[in-house]
C-alpha cells in the first residue's frame, strides 16, 4: 500500500447523505476478479444524470470527496473503495461513515475523515472553487482561507496509512499468540475445530425447519 501523509487538491463538493455502496459501484461491476479498473463504473447511476458533479471538468480527478452522513452504507463490497481509489480519490470527508466502508477505505489507502456537519457544510461551499487539504501529520483539514478543522483517527490505522504497512504481515508476526489461543480452544471448545467437513456429510433432513 502506498503511504499517505497529505492529500491535497480539488474536492468533489457533493454532500449527499446515505450514499450506499450500490451507488458507489453498482452490482454489475462486481464481476471482476481484479482490484483495478473499477473507476469507470464508479457512481454510474449519478453520472447518468445531466450536470452531475463527477463529470464536471472542474472536479475531474479530485483526490478528495466530500459527502454527507452514513457514507458507504449497505453492501460490504470492497469494490467501492477500489473504485474510489481507481478514480483517484485518496480521502473522503463526511459526518459519518458505515463501519464496513471505513475499514475498507483504510485498507486501500483512502482516509475516511469524520468532521461535524457544519464543517462539512463549510467545506462543500469552499470546495466549489478552492482546494482542500487533509493532513495526517497535523490531523487537520484546511482550506486556503482560515479554515482549520481537526479530526481524529485510530492511531494504529493512522500509522498503517502513513507508513503504508501491510496489516496481514503485522498479524502473521503474532503467530505465537495465535497458536497459543488455538491450543486453548482445542481444549475448551473442541467442537470448533472438529467440525465435520463437507465431503460426505449426510444431508438428509438438513433443510428441515
Amino acid at each position, binding site marked *: 500500500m502506498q503511504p499517505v501523509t497529505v492529500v491535497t487538491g480539488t474536492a468533489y463538493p457533493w454532500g449527499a447523505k446515505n450514499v450506499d455502496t450500490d451507488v458507489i459501484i453498482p452490482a454489475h461491476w462486481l464481476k471482476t476478479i481484479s482490484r483495478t479498473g473499477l473507476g469507470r463504473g464508479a457512481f454510474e447511476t449519478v453520472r447518468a444524470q445531466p450536470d452531475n458533479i463527477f463529470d464536471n471538468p472542474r472536479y475531474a480527478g479530485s483526490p478528495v470527496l466530500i459527502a*454527507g452522513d452514513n457514507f458507504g452504507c449497505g453492501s460490504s463490497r470492497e469494490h467501492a473503495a477500489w473504485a474510489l481509489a481507481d478514480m483517484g480519490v485518496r480521502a473522503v470527508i463526511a459526518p459519518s461513515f458505515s463501519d*464496513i466502508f471505513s475499514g475498507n477505505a483504510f485498507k486501500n489507502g483512502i482516509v475516511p475523515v469524520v468532521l461535524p456537519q457544519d464543517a462539512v457544510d463549510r467545506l462543500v461551499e469552499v470546495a466549489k472553487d478552492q482546494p482542500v487539504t487533509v493532513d495526517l501529520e497535523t490531523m487537520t483539514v484546511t482550506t486556503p482561507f482560515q479554515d482549520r478543522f481537526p479530526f481524529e483517527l485510530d492511531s494504529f490505522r493512522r500509522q498503517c496509512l502513513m507508513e503504508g504497512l501491510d496489516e496481514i504481515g503485522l498479524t502473521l508476526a*503474532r503467530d505465537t499468540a495465535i497458536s497459543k489461543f488455538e491450543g486453548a480452544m482445542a481444549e475448551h471448545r473442541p467442537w470448533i475445530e472438529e467440525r465435520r*467437513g463437507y465431503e460426505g456429510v449426510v444431508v438428509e433432513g438438513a433443510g*428441515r425447519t
Partner: protein
Amino acid sequence: MSSRPQTLYEKIWAAHVVERRDDGTCLIYIDRHLVHEVTSPQAFEGLRVAGRRVRRPELTLAVPDHNLPTTPRVDAAGRLLPIADKESAAQLDALRRNTAEFGVDYIDATAAEQGIVHVVGPELGFTLPGTTLVCGDSHTSAHGALGALAFGIGTSEVEHVLATQTLLLSPSKTMEIRVDGALGFGVSAKDVILAIIGKIGAAGGTGYVVEYTGEVIRNLSVEGRLTIANMSIEGGARAGLVAPDETTFDYIKGRPMAPAGADWDRAVAWWRTLPSDPGAKYDRTVMLDASDIAPSLTWGTSPEDVVPITGAVPDPDSFADPAKRAAGWKSLDYMGLTPGTRMQDVDIGHVFIGSCTNSRIEDLRAAASVADGRRVADGVRAMVVPGSGLVKRQAEAEGLDRIFTNAGFEWREPGCSMCLAMNPDKVPPGERCASTSNRNFVGRQGPGARTHLLSPAMAAAAAVTGRLADVRDLMGAKS
C-alpha cells in the same frame, strides 16, 4: 470470572481475544469463515502474490450464490451447464480453482447443498452459537440469529482471515432492541424488522452490535430470527444477536456439520452460559410493542422508508429534516409515486420471493398458504427462488412447488437471484417489484427498478392481486 454482569456480545468477544492492544483494539479469533464468489477472488489472489497459505482451511466453507443463474443448471448427467455471462462464469471458475488450490471445502453449483451462503451456513450446522463468524458479505449479520457474533467484512479482511484466522477489531457499543407483546394476525418476522428499521433509521445502529430481546423474539423460530438478524445491517448495525436458547439447540441438533456426541453436550453446556446476565448494561435500549406492528412495506429507496400496508405514501414536505425532505422527493420521483396515494392502490408488475432474508422453508410455506388455490394476476411475473437446494427439496416434498406453479409462479433454482442485479434475474427499468429481499436501493434489482420490501405472505398477496395488498384480507378466506 468478573462479577460485573455481561452481555452476550461481551461474553463472545471475551472468549475470542487473542491479544489486546494498548489502544483497546483486539486481535479476535475467527471460528467460522464463509466465502462466496464475488468478494473472494482478489483475496485469494493476494495470498498467491504474497506466497501465503490459508491458515485453517477446515474453518472455512465456500459456496457460489450471487452469480448463478436460477434456471435449471445441470444437464441429464448432473454436469453444470455453461453460464452465458462470461464474467460470471470466470468468477465462478475462480472460486472453484481457488478453493481447490488452497484446500478449502467447496460446495459446487451442482450439489444439492448449494444455496445462498447465509441460508447454507445455519442449515448445515456450520453456524454455531458463541462462534465468531465472518463472510465477505454484509448480510452475514443473519447468523447472529443463532447467537453467533457474525458480521460482514471487506475483501482485504477476507484475505486477512484466510491468512491468519483473526481480525483486528475495536469493541462495538451495544444496543438492546426489545420487542414485547405478541404479534398480531398476519404479522411476520419481516414486519418486525421493517418496523425496527423504520424506527431507528438506516444509520441508527451504526457503531453498535444489536441484541434482539423480548417476548416476540423468544417466541420466534430460528428462521424468523434469521430474517430479523439478517437485516440488522439495514439499520446500520454490523451484527445482530439473539441469545441461544432451547429453540436454537433444537434447530442445530443433528445438522450435518454440528457437533455430535460428547462434543454436543459440552457445546450446549457452554452455550447455556452465553445469554446476557440479568442487569447487564447496554449502551442504548430501544423498545417496540408488537401490537403496534402491522404488515408493513417500504415506499422509498432506503429500508427506513417503512409504512404499514394500511398507510399511504408520505408527503416529504412533512419531514422536519431538510435533507430527508430532499431525499424523500428524490425517492418518490425514482419510485414513480405521489404523496397521499394509498399503498394498496399501487399496482405491481413483478414479485420476487427469495433472498437470504426470506427464502427458507417457513417463508415458502407462508407464501404458499396465500398462493394456494389462487392465480397470479394478469401481467404479473412472480418467481419463487428457494434459498438452497435443501430448502428446495424440502418444499418439493411438501408439495409447495406445485402450489406455486399451479398458481402461475415460477419455481426456480437456488441463488441470490433478483435480490441484486448480478445474474440474469432482473426487474426491468421503471417496473415495480414486490420483493422479500432486504434492499430497496436505487438500481438494486436492476437499473431503474422500483422495489417494495415486504414479507413472503405479503409478496404472495401482491402476486395474486396485482397490487400491494393487505395479506390479512386474503388469509383464512379464499376468494
